[in-house]
């Protein structure tokens, strides 16, 4: 084995510098995050059935309430409750649907509450449609332009659970004028337990 000083050659220097330049160019030019990691977002509207590959998702109804009631509990909103009724129909196998959040026009996100019988996640198998009610406590200025994002992957750690996977984003259809009206109304919604969806609640099949 040879000991002592190693000779620095221009070929070696070129190899190192060239490798670093090529690596930087690769990272800078290839949009790796958007290509590899961004979830496959399927957008839709209330009443529309979205094909998320692993399930068919339908947001059947969106309501706003100050108070939620279940058979054993009542909950008062800090802002107002956005109550999102949805049905999941799994298409591959038994699936847990963990992700649920509302994003407002300012890109703020709100996670669901489990108060008064509301669900924060769901489980379903192929062969039937499963009805779930999600409830979100949001401030007044979050209503207009809000969307709900539902998926089997969770939204924690910047949607890490949804990477390379489908997520449904549904526009709640609340305009600025609607938001003012909805905020001033005092409504009470009685929540339903999760269960088999009826044809009325399942919404349109495309």
């Amino acid at each position, binding site marked *: 084995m*040879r000991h002592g000083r190693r000779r620095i050659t221009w070929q070696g220097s070129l190899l190192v510098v060239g490798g670093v330049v090529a690596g930087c160019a690769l990272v800078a030019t290839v949009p790796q995050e958007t290509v590899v990691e961004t979830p496959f977002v399927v957008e839709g509207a209330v009443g529309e059935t979205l094909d998320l590959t692993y399930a068919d998702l339908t947001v059947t109804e969106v309501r706003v309430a100050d108070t939620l009631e279940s058979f054993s509990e009542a909950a008062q909103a800090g802002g107002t409750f956005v109550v999102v009724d949805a049905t999941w129909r799994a298409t*591959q196998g*038994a699936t847990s649907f963990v992700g649920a959040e509302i994003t407002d026009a300012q890109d703020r996100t709100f996670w669901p509450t489990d108060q008064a019988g509301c669900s924060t996640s769901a489980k379903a*198998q192929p*062969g*039937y449609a499963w009805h779930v009610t999600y409830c979100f406590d949001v401030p007044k200025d979050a209503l207009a332009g809000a969307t709900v994002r539902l998926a089997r992957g969770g939204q924690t750690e910047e949607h890490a659970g949804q990477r390379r996977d489908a997520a449904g984003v549904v526009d709640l259809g609340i305009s600025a004028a609607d938001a003012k009206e909805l905020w001033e109304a005092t409504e009470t919604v009685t929540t339903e337990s999760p269960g088999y*969806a009826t044809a009325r609640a399942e919404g349109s099949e495309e």
Partner: protein
Amino acid sequence: MTTLVTPAVPGPGQDPYPSLQPGGAPSLQPGLLPGSVPPDVPVAGRPRGWWRRNAVWLVLLPIAIVVTTAASSFRVWAFWWPDGVHYESQRVALGEPAHLASEYLDMGFDVPERANTYVLRELDATVTGVEQVDELPAPAYGMPVEIPEGSVAYEVQLHFAAEPRTDLSLCTIALVSDDGTRYGEASPDVLGNSNRCLPDGADGFVSERPEWDVSSFVLVDPDARIEQVRLSFGGPDYLAVELP
């Protein structure tokens, strides 16, 4: 430590270093004074290349890769292999009996003397029929269940034979359609029964008789073509029963 010895001047008629110049020291190169340390003599020929200098490591590298892979391979059986139902251990036709034997760690819930021991579960299972039904039977516990709109229900009939007190927990009966969709793979079933390999309303998860029949009900999409029944006990292996 190097000791230089300057030889004595040879006497007449005695020339031990005949090739040397007269008056020159034998260990010195020309131009060096006595007591000087000569510089390293460069090695003759071409210097050894990178591959030759690192030959030992190049030989050891594949060995190291094999050793590292083997050392971390415990993850395959510790984490990946036991997870899920993914290994088809047997395939039989409808009505054909299959002998199932697999080892599991008994927690002793139903048979305390088997707690924390590995037990061989052996049983003969036969899927005797799979047919669509118009209504679901009343469950042993809870309210009657109607077939939801947008679904059809299948009844899977099975016959089992095993030593009494065979543990049948984690039993799963799934229907697989031609597009690979797995129906009913998670418990409980549509009737709320988590103990699907024992008669409805059975007390505990161990068998009581040497032979018995069960019916399991599964909700399926109306347009699905069911091709296979899968029977498993927590995986990773399962029995596949092909339907005609």
